[in-house]
């Protein structure tokens, strides 16, 4: 019991630090480019007002950047302090992109930030502009590498990872495939474009705030024009790439998409519930999806179209993923668990034999560990992409080792709870559509020259300012709660990943960091509001 509550606290600690960090990251990703745009216009036109605009937004950027770094450093080390078993089992694969991130991205960010912030009078205009761009590129590159690492957690394909029986851990076998994994690539594009949208909304909203107050009018008009254009492109792109992202998730993490859409029972031509309240049920006991909703408004066939790119394709529900579905070649969970358990037994037998020096027994265990279990003869037609590791051409026992830990446990532990994932996902999508509408409206107003006079639009822009933070946080929750109960999908359960340490230590560090972040967060907001209140003239 103590172990379980320690796991929950360790998760809470990670979630808390990650959420705090993720308030600042998307802002940095987008704002660094916004600042670079403004500065480019300044250098091209040579007009002083653009320099003022650049410096104002840069100051706001810098205030956020500091807290982003502050909340970020804990993360890298939390993988060691609180998730040391995770680091041990997958560190060979997971550590590499983190180290690459450090070398190619962080130094670029930190080094050129120094010029961009402090070098206005110390370097030439050209060097300064280049530095602002390199700062933006460096920030975005770091997102690429961290999402490659995260992509591995979502979909540990045996194309780039292999469980080595001799070292008892997952090892990297193909760096290029790790980088090029579609799950990570679409995730990267989705996250960075969400960051651009978020920064654009912030700039648009603050500009609208000034216009409502009839202050800094020229400054606000110019800022809003850039933000409206950047935001329109970005917000549409977020949705387009989000669709690709959902496609990848449907085909690699069926439990996540089923939870996110509240799909208890698999259907051909599965609908999307646009608006509804799902119930938290035992999946195996649900007879029909109609029983699973307090109320719902459906868009028929949409899930099959978006998730499988086919009007009538079958999308498995949570019940199918537990009970199996012969018609569509889906294994019951019990079979996955049995194979996983065999893999665990092979691992154990191998090391007992190794200690005893029994080469024959070692070979036998190894052979069994890497036995292909799906498709059985390797020539089988792929009729359904497999729930555990779907785009693989084949699955071996070792690829399913994580399922061995669930043998004899409540089968509903194998998927995340439906309501939180459903609501997080759907609120994110709804907000995403609102952002597109807002930017279309704002862009048209900017082009027609009516942005300055449309108080309704301005008020809506101001009210929208906090919403992209809500949307990005919900997006993160969809991805990370939706992946449960795994840290590495199908390979390593969350409950097996944590450092064995007494509960009180985890609680103590949880509150230590929570207190620090809340206080520093309040300080950050107050400083920010003060800077906004003073406006561009008072910047720096």
């Amino acid at each position, binding site marked *: 019991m103590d172990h379980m509550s320690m796991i929950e606290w360790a998760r809470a600690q990670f979630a808390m630090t990650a959420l705090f960090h993720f308030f600042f990251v998307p802002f940095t990703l987008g704002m660094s480019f916004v600042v670079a745009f403004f500065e480019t216009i300044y250098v091209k036109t040579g007009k002083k007002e653009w320099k003022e605009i650049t410096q104002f937004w*840069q*100051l706001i950027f810098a*205030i956020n*950047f*500091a*807290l982003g*770094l*502050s909340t970020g*450093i*804990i993360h*890298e*080390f939390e*993988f*060691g*302090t609180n*998730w*040391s*078993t995770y*680091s*041990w089992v997958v560190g*060979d*694969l997971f*550590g*590499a992109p983190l*180290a*690459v*991130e*450090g*070398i190619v991205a*962080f*130094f670029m960010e*930190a*080094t*050129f930030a*120094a*010029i961009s*912030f*402090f*070098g206005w*009078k*110390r370097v030439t205009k050209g*060097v300064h502009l280049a530095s602002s761009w390199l700062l933006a590129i460096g920030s975005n590159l770091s997102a690429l590498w961290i999402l490659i690492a995260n992509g591995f957690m979502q979909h540990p394909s045996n194309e780039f990872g292999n469980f080595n029986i001799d070292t008892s851990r997952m*090892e*990297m076998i193909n760096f290029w495939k790790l980088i090029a994994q579609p799950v990570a690539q679409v995730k990267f594009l989705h996250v960075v474009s969400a960051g651009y949208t978020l920064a654009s909304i912030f700039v648009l909203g603050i500009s609208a705030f000034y216009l409502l107050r009839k202050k800094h009018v020229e400054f606000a008009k110019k800022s809003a024009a850039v933000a409206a254009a950047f935001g329109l492109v970005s917000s549409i792109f977020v949705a387009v790439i989000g669709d690709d992202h959902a496609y990848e998730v449907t085909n690699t993490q069926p439990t996540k998409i089923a939870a996110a859409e509240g799909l208890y029972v698999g259907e051909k031509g599965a609908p999307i519930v646009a608006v509804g309240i799902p119930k938290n049920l035992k999946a195996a006991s649900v007879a029909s999806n109609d029983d699973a909703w307090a109320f719902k408004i459906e868009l028929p066939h949409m899930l099959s179209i978006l998730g499988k790119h086919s009007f009538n394709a079958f999308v498995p529900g949570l019940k199918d993923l537990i009970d199996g579905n012969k018609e569509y070649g889906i294994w019951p969970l019990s079979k996955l668990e049995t194979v996983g358990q065999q893999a665990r037994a092979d691992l154990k037998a191998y*090391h007992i034999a*190794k200690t005893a020096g029994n080469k024959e027994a070692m070979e036998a265990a190894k052979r069994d560990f890497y036995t292909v279990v799906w498709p059985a003869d390797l020539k089988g037609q792929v009729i359904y992409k497999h729930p555990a590791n779907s785009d693989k051409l084949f699955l071996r026992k070792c690829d399913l080792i994580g399922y061995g830990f669930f043998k004899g446990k409540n089968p509903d532990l194998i998927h995340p709870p439906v309501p939180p994932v459903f609501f997080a996902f759907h609120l994110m999508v709804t907000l995403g559509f609102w952002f597109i509408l807002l930017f279309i409206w704002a862009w048209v107003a900017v082009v027609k020259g009516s942005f300055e006079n449309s108080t309704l639009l301005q008020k809506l822009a101001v009210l929208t300012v906090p919403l992209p933070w809500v949307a990005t946080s919900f997006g993160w929750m969809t991805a990370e709660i939706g992946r449960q109960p795994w840290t590495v999908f199908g390979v390593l359960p969350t409950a097996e990943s944590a*450092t064995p*340490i007494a509960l*009180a230590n985890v609680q*103590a560090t949880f509150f*230590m*960091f929570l207190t*620090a972040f809340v*206080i*520093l967060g309040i*300080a*950050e907001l107050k*400083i920010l509001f*003060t800077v906004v209140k003073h406006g561009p003239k008072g910047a*720096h």
Partner: protein
Amino acid sequence: MSWAPYTVDATHFYLQVYFWIIVAVLGGLFLLMTFVQGGQSLFHTAKDEMEERAITNSLGRKWELTFTTLVLFGGALYAAFPLFYSVSFGGAYWVWMLILFGFVLQAVSYEYMNKENNVLGKGVYKFFLYFNGIVTMLLIGAAVGTFFTGSNFSFDPATRHVIWGTASDGFNLRGLEAAIDFKHGAWFNLSFGVLLFAAARILGGLWLINDIDNNEFPELIARIRGTIKKCFVVLVIALAIVLAGLLTMKGYSYNIHDPKGTVTLVAGKYLHNLLSFGAIPLLLFAAGLVLFILGVLKTGFGNSNKGIWFAGLGIVLIGIVVFVIAGLFGTPFYPSYADLQSSLTIQNTSGSKYTLEVMAWVSVAVPFVLAYIIWVWYQMKKNGPITKEEIADPESHAY
């Protein structure tokens, strides 16, 4: 119970050595960059607002680089020696958590300290910088000290978990025994911490003298010089204790060709390491020490402001040697005094051969990164030191 060594072929072993040297170089560079932390411990030398802002602005342009070096140091260890990452960070829990906490506080302090409505007030942010400059440095020193004195852990082959000896069911400051358990080398670890702190403080002073306009801030510069001199005495004493300890303690040792990697305690191990490989480690160490002292003499005792370049290069060399003798020549770099055979070596903690090969290719980028850092550094310094005019200029993003 011993770990099975992962190394099976020569290339893999050379890659492990290569990455340990990379870790050593990053460690040395990190020690150089702790001039920021050392500088943060020198705020008391400023007697007015302008002097204080001169210090803040000089360090405020460099702290991110120290921070990033630490992150890369962690990342390199994670990628190349993942088992160490797991055992040490998960084991010596509180040491690392408190070190991190110091950096969390530091990261916001420069930016927020002199801003209007910063909630906590300037004094608190200054306290954060002191905390990071003093406590964090002592803890980092104590943590590095355990690379020689060992830690209290053992490997349980049944669960494949690492059992930390000081673990208990309730709240425990596990890991902090490095600084309070005097039976197991806390005196050495703490001396190491004091040494690191003194070195950082001296480097900080040398940096500030170099980076702040000497003509505009003559009194501040003179006070910093005075502090460097006092601190140098502390450094010499701490260094004597650490060196005496290092040369007299029994060191952990194993044979790199032994498939079981049996660890034993050997007298004079670290002296042996210094004299290994044609005594190059000893020569580098001596060169580093001479350069460091030369830097202190030039700027701390003399009137030159160039001392930081000598002392800085010196500390990098010293740092490299410290890590090299801790981990190469058949030395477990993270030993366990609770169970010798559970000690961690570059061989039994390393990543797979393929991962190290990939990372070796990635490491080709390091010289380029260093080159642009140096170029940027030069760009920012070529127009002279920090002046009162720059600090007062609303357009310079001064703190």
